[in-house]
């Protein structure tokens, strides 16, 4: 192996070794932990000599005898310069170098959009994710690995499904419209789903107006810059392989009524309401043991395995560098039948020749997902509310799944079997994605470069959905097959000019650019009913009601942009940005928006008067700027008619032959006067490094105001239209404080580090003028939008809980009658508070009770190593967060035939007055179940999100294997959670990407699993 490596070295670095007048500098580069640094650069100043270290951290430079200054550098580490290195002819000068990690204000560069910037010169608010911690999170989903790793970034998971639905908010919820950030992957606006965490070299998050303004109209929600691995010049061939696999399981279950409790409860319910008790219920009450005892949670949630493989090959010589990475992950979900399978190949390379530079990025990926069916409606809710006497399987039923058989249980509603809902809706969604990008760069004169970049993202989507009927014979719909295919193409052409200039102590980098972007989408879908029974899978075989639909859209963006970054002596820093965007989503008069920003910085520690030896760097900075958002419906400004034959809302039947005629309607009103939504952000902050970078601290404060927010004005239904026109009428304010700190101690053999980040913000709706009622309702508990639990209105945070206030239970009929506001209320009914004291109980008494937005989120990373062992723990905590527990609402609503929580057995009776569960009465005449504070819970939690222990095998043990390095590790995800929340998981309900107002409601949403993993890291 050594031999092979040597040969490789020789091929890669053809170095003359025999000339008599030459000597050598050789040595080893190690980091603070003493570990070899691979592919670090050694430069001999004022010469063209240099080398990169090999896999053992060794380097060797052959050069003429003389005295030299040698510089060793590596990204993220402080550069070391060694002067007076003497090289004698024919001799080898030994020079081992240790590099120290540079924490905050270093040579480290940050990707800022159309270029990079040295971190110490940054004046905007940019968070660089620590890849050391990020890489420790075993995930095939970049966003879930990112949660809690960066201050100012809230990754609100909607649920814990394998596809990892998450909504990302940078610095709060800036708008009621799309508030997802812009993802820029290797310089190309792109989708985040198709990047595997293992392919990522760095993640930089542009948060304030100054840093994000270069992306103008799409930057109001922040920008996440992802750079994938590209290999580096003059580095040896490196092969890395990582694999892990594990088991996930449901961490917590609800305690529901068994058949005995259920039959007693239903008996009480019906009797109290004066309803007839069916014979079957009396029989069940008498002998509950004779019935099935189905534990639906056990049937629906199953342990699930996951595996992941990552393989990469990288290297480079003096004119090129490359990285080829292949990944495969298969994550099955704990809801039976759900999965996400992800395969990816990414090839990146760069080439230099003279004044030219070329490069390419190519990524091909396929994602196959089987989702949870009817999540939260017939899915999660039913698992909890179908009574246990319903059997899982029953051969007498269509499909073979148990149902509440109407011949055995007349009058009992036909609640669908949740397992059948999941398994008989056979669905597979496939996303094929290609991202291809090429660039060419030419240095016109020294410092002035022109770059042309062309990219294409193409996505093909296929949905396959086969519905197999199940249920009571004679009462089932036909089976059916539905397929959808869509294609989305994103094309972008960018021209940029950059000019780098330094004179005296002035340093200037100027940028000007022009870009054109186009998104095109087209879909076709179709289906058919009644296919042969034996599970065929093509539409051709269906016999009834075939149908086909299709639509398309396009989106265009035309932009010019410019930026000047200036500093004087690395001490006084200034950045000015401007971008002008034209968007096809607006009419001609409002099409263009201009988005400027500026920021300043002052490195106080560079001043001669600064004399605090403990502080090795201190920078103060401030920025202000304007960003835009055009995330509204396409074509919203064009008045048009729906004439689609596929639209059943407007077609009707005429004639003796009963022909369906297509209608034409205007269900949406055009909004021709709309213009850009803009966000103005003020940011101030500082960066501090102390004790020679052992401690690093950054803090920021910002105020972010969104104006001319584009709102779809909700109209009364008497207007007769689907939705009102879009208008620029809202205002929103977000304010926040962000803090991050790190501490490293590598001085003893026990090396450890802490990283802490803290995010806090407040959100407030400032105006919703033009909206009658001044509010949006959201967070429906049930299908059909009834029972909203959130309200968004002026003066409150977005999607604030808006609920009835309760004051315990009436302890007697007399007490209820004396209260006088609840007609017909009896002892054991919930007492609702007349909060406005107007003597009537109505919707006006519903009160705001906080929101699901946390007051504070805190991520804490601990890394340590001792000899061959390494350890990582990541703790995440969310404080001041509330959830409406919709699952508990379903299980305690005590209204109809649904099974209930075991707690409901403890309902109020005159003999059992000390309880908070109201009396059992069918149909809930007092509406005890109305959305009230009874179901609002504190969802604070502290979670050990990840813990990992690794062991690196000693080199000797690998001698025969051919591997350079082998590390084995075990890890556990979500091992411990401390929370008072009673539901499956306090981390769900973080916001639905598709519906801003739907946050904070736990409809028995797909919980996060507890996962145990075992893995191996190999390199050669």
């Amino acid at each position: 192996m050594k031999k092979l490596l040597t040969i490789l070295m020789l091929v890669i670095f053809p170095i003359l070794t025999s000339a008599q007048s030459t000597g050598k500098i050789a040595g080893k580069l190690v980091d603070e932990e003493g570990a070899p640094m691979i592919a670090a650069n050694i430069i001999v100043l004022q010469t063209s000599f240099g080398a990169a270290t090999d896999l053992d951290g060794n380097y060797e430079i052959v050069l003429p005898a003389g005295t030299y200054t040698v510089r060793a550098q590596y990204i993220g580490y402080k550069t070391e310069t060694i002067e007076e290195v003497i090289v004698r002819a024919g001799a080898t000068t030994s020079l081992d170098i240790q590099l120290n990690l540079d924490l905050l204000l270093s040579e480290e560069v940050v990707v800022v959009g159309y270029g990079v910037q040295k971190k110490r010169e940054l004046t905007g608010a940019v968070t660089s994710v620590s890849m050391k911690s990020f890489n420790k999170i075993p995930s095939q989903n970049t966003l879930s690995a990112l949660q809690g790793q960066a201050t100012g970034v809230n990754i609100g998971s909607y649920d814990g499904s394998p596809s990892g639905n998450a909504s990302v908010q940078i610095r709060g919820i800036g708008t009621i419209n799309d508030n997802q950030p812009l993802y820029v992957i290797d310089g190309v606006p792109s989708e985040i789903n198709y990047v595997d965490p293992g392919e990522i070299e760095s993640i930089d998050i542009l948060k304030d107006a100054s840093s994000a303004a270069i992306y103008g109209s799409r930057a109001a929600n922040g920008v996440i810059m992802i750079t994938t691995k590209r290999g580096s010049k003059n580095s040896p061939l490196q092969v890395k392989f990582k694999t892990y696999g594990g088991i996930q399981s449901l961490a917590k279950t609800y305690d529901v009524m068994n058949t005995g409790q259920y039959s007693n409860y239903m008996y009480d319910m019906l009797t109290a309401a004066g309803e007839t008790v069916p014979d079957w219920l009396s029989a069940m009450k008498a002998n509950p043991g004779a019935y099935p005892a189905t534990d639906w949670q056990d049937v629906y949630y199953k342990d699930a395995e996951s595996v992941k493989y990552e393989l990469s090959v990288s290297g480079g010589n003096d004119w090129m560098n490359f990285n080829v990475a292949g990944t495969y992950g298969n994550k099955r979900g704990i809801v039976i039948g759900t999965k996400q399978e992800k395969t990816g190949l990414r090839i990146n390379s760069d080439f230099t020749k003279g004044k030219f530079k070329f490069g390419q990025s190519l990524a091909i990926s396929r994602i196959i997902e089987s989702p949870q069916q009817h999540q939260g409606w017939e899915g999660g809710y039913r698992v909890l509310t179908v009574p246990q006497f319903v059997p899982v399987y029953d051969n007498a039923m269509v499909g073979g799944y148990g149902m509440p058989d109407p011949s055995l249980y007349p009058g009992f509603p036909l609640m669908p079997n949740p397992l059948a809902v999941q398994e008989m809706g056979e669905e597979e969604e496939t996303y094929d994605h290609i991202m291809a990008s090429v660039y060419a760069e030419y240095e016109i004169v020294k410092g002035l470069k022109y770059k042309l970049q062309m990219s294409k993202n193409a996505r093909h989507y296929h949905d396959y959905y086969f519905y197999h009927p199940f249920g009571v014979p004679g009462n089932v719909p036909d089976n059916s097959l539905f397929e959808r295919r869509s294609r989305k193409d994103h094309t972008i052409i960018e021209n940029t000019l950059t000019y780098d200039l330094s004179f005296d102590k002035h340093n200037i980098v100027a940028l000007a650019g022009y870009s054109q972007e186009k998104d095109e989408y087209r879909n076709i879908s179709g289906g058919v009913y009644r296919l042969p029974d034996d599970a065929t899978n093509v539409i051709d075989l269906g016999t009834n009601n075939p149908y086909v639909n299709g639509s398309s859209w396009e989106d265009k963006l035309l932009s010019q942009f410019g930026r000047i970054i200036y500093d004087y002596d690395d001490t006084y820093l200034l950045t000015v940005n401007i971008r002008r965007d034209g968007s096809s989503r607006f009419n001609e008069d409002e099409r263009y928006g201009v988005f400027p920003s500026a920021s300043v910085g002052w490195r106080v520690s560079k001043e001669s008067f600064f004399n605090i030896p403990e502080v090795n760097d201190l920078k103060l900075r401030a920025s202000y700027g304007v960003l835009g958002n055009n995330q509204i419906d396409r074509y919203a400004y064009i008045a048009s008619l729906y004439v689609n034959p596929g639209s059943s809302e407007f077609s009707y039947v005429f004639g003796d032959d009963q022909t369906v005629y297509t209608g034409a309607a205007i269900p949406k009103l055009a909004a021709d006067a709309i213009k850009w939504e803009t966000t103005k952000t003020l940011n101030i902050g500082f960066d501090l490094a102390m004790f020679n970078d052992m401690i690093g601290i950054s803090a920021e404060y910002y105020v972010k105001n969104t104006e001319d927010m584009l709102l779809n004005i909700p109209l009364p239904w008497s207007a007769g239209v689907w939705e009102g026109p879009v208008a620029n009428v809202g205002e929103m304010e977000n304010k926040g404080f962000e803090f991050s700190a790190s501490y490293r101690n590598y001085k003893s053999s026990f090396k450890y580090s802490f990283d802490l980040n803290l995010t806090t913000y407040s959100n407030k709706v400032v105006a919703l003028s033009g909206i009658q009622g001044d509010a949006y309702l959201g967070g429906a508990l049930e299908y059909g939008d009834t029972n909203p639990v959130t309200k968004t209105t002026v003066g409150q945070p977005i999607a604030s809980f808006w609920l009835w206030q309760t004051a315990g239970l009436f302890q007697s009929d007399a007490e209820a009658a004396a209260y006088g506001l609840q007609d017909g209320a009896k002892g054991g009914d919930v007492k609702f508070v007349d909060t406005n004291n107007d003597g009537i109980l109505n919707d006006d008494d519903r009160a705001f009770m906080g929101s699901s937005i946390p007051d504070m989120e805190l991520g804490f990373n601990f890394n340590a190593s001792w000899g061959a062992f390494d350890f990582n723990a990541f703790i995440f905590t969310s404080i001041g967060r509330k959830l409406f527990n919709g699952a508990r609402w379903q299980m305690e609503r005590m209204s109809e035939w649904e099974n209930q929580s075991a707690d409901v057995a403890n309902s109020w009776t005159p003999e059992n007055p000390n309880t908070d569960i109201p009396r059992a009465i069918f149909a809930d005449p007092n509406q005890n179940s109305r959305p009230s504070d009874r179901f609002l819970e504190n969802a604070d939690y502290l979670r050990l999100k990840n813990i990992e222990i690794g062991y690196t095998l000693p080199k000797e043990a690998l001698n025969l294997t051919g591997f350079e390095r082998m590390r084995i590790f075990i890890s556990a995800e979500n091992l411990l959670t401390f929370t008072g929340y009673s539901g499956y998981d306090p981390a769900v309900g973080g916001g639905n990407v598709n519906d801003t107002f739907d946050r904070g409601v736990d409809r028995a949403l797909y919980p996060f699993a507890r996962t145990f993993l075992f893995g191996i890291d190999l390199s050669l």
Partner: protein
Amino acid sequence: MKINKVITVLLLALFVFTGCEENFLDVTDPNRVTEDQFWQTEDDAFKALTAAYAQLTIPLWGRWGHYECKILVENYRTDLGYFMPDYDEWVEMYSFRMSEENYTKDYYWYYYYQGIYQTNIFLENIDRVEMDNTMKAQMVGEAKFLRAFYHLKLVTYFKNIPLILAVPTVAEDFYPTQATPDAVYTQCIQDFTDAANALPTQWESRYKGRATKGAANAYLGLTHIYKTNPDWSAASSAFGSVINSGQYDLLPEFWDNFNGMSENGPESVFELQFTVNRPNNVSESQTLPAQFGAWGQGGPSDWYFDMMMNDKKADGSYSDRVYGTFFFDDPNTTAFWFEEGDTWGSTEGDRKLWKKWVYKSEVETANEPSWDRSGVNTVEMRFADVLLMQAECLNEQGQTTQAIDIINLVRARSGVTPIGTLSQSELRNHIRNYERPAELAFEGKRWADLVRWGVVEPTLRTHNNPYVDNFDVGVDEYLPIPSIDLNNNPNLVQNPGF
């Protein structure tokens, strides 16, 4: 010097790159037709009118709206039936525990207002279309008929409603105030009268289902008897013009009104059109077979069942309308799902279920409809209803004998023995508590009848409705205005008591 040069280059670059592709940002919506391209031909006009008709079927969630909104709102609260506890909203409806938000009545409101909006769009734009003037006048008549139909339904069930006669354009238009019920009735009378003058007596075969002169007159009469102070004479004259038009007759078989065998036939004055022949899966079918009888959603109340047990032929056997109205344990009850040798008693026990429309007709058999949908049309206004309303008008005007003759016509069709001489008040009572329910049960008439007679609470009580204690007189006659409208329109006032 050098800097100046660079800046010049940069500025130049910006200019060079921006000039091109003037029209790059111009787009059109490929999925729609713009307003400028529309309103050209008769076909355009017919399309716009079709969209107004389409709301008749409450196209909520494809095919469920007809049952879950229309049938529920118009039929669930009466003395005639019982219903199984299913969705909470349905329970709320029949047990008089109505909340402000209940999708059944909310969508009833929504789709009928969508229908009104479409008629107003049509009426405001029809003059842009170059087409045959006779046809144009007829189509204007149809639009007015539909606008009045939707308003009449809404005022019947919600009482205090906005009267919408124009397409909203400026912000204030979106937030109308409520009109008085009288103003709504007056407008309906106007629209129905205009429609009756413009509409043809019959449409050719391919256009059956469009509104006719007879339909407009029947609803004109209905408006006159529904309005706050009924105008019996005006109603009588409207019904008379329907009866004397020569276009209508009772079907020989009562049951053929409900089984799809006689769609748009001689007894049909206005009929909602459904089909299972659905091109491209467009939902134009309805859900009665599954929802109604076959899933056991409901059946006759004890009072109604007992009453109907007296609806007999001269030979003492049950009348045709008994067998046509509900399933019950009787050797002559048959259901389409019966196999050889099945009887109601042997398969369903002593359950009693609604039967009207629960039928798989031979017309549909060729297409094998599944149990959860049906193409059978629903007759919204039957000639038998027109006759019974005419009888009521005559009786109220003192012409009791003539009224009895008309009633006996309707009875004779089902083989029921005729009624003899009755006093005016006896006949009034007979019409209210026997004849109309016997003939028209579950056809969306009963609740409106009880409300207009002002007898809801005593009737429910006498007829043992189990939820009568929840019924608040002066409140529960009407439904609450949808909260979405109250929330978004500050000019609305909730109906009293909600």
